[in-house]
């Protein structure tokens, strides 16, 4: 994985432990995903946002710019042409950022895994937090994944991005 790890180079100056609970609660309950629907799973992602499954009641509001997004739902197949764009968009997001790999194609390449142009899973490119199998996964499965991400965020657990950055720092790899 050749992603820019985005090391946090300055912790906050004031002790925020008493506020940390509040900050985590706020972050967890306003999870804004970046719309990155590539293929068929994007339609199921739209369905999750529609009235029957309704993500907005959880504070999940789809944003189009990575600057304003907390999490990136990779919905669909990733191929060699779009791989550098995925990487760039991921790097343009700010920490804390989560990644949900939705659908078999994003998890492992799916039905197209032996194609000459298909990347076998988006975790070859960026660190992934939650994998949602299915072709396409039911909207309830994606909803479950989003709730899991929200719980992780509220609990203050490190996202895969932060874990990856910490490993990078531990290995002594410079930016």
């Amino acid at each position, binding site marked *: 994985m050749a992603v*820019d*790890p*985005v*090391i*946090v*180079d*300055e*912790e*906050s*100056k*004031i002790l*925020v432990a008493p*506020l940390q609970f509040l*900050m985590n609660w706020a972050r967890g309950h306003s999870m804004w995903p970046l719309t990155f629907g590539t293929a068929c799973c994007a339609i199921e992602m739209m369905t999750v946002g529609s009235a029957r499954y309704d993500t907005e009641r959880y504070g999940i509001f789809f944003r189009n*710019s*990575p*600057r304003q997004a907390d999490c990136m739902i990779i919905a669909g197949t990733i191929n060699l042409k*779009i791989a550098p*764009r*995925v990487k*760039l*968009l991921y*790097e*343009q*997001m*700010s*920490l804390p950022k989560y990644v949900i790999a939705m659908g078999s194609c994003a998890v492992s390449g799916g039905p197209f895994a032996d194609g000459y142009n298909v990347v076998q899973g988006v975790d070859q490119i960026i660190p992934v937090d939650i994998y949602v199998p299915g072709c396409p996964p039911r909207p309830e499965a994606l909803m479950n994944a989003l709730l899991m991400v929200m719980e992780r965020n509220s609990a203050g657990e490190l996202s895969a991005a932060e874990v990856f950055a910490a490993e990078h720092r531990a290995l002594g790899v410079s*930016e």
Partner: protein
Amino acid sequence: MAVAALVFTGFLLVGAALALILVTLPRFLAPHSHSVAKGSSYECGELPIGEPWIRFHVGYYIFAIIFVVFDVETVFLYPWAVIFRQLGIYSFVEMAVFVGILVLGLAYAWRKGVLKWQ
């Protein structure tokens, strides 16, 4: 009258203080991180082509100026509308003159075709 002045000053102070606090607080509370890619400009995942410092279309400027003018006019209208009843007919005529001058400007801009994007 003194109460009103007090309320007004209080409003000013609280507003200014809130603005200052909201801007400076993240400097202390939030973590900071930089990376090359994070600082790059966003263009739907593509790399931008060409310089952003080009000569922009003058229509954008004109739209913005007209918007600012009428926005400020609205700012003046609001407090007048709140205490309109107590002020009487004199203030109505005065405000009508003010709005009339601005409407003349709008009519001029309209005739000049500025409101349509050429």
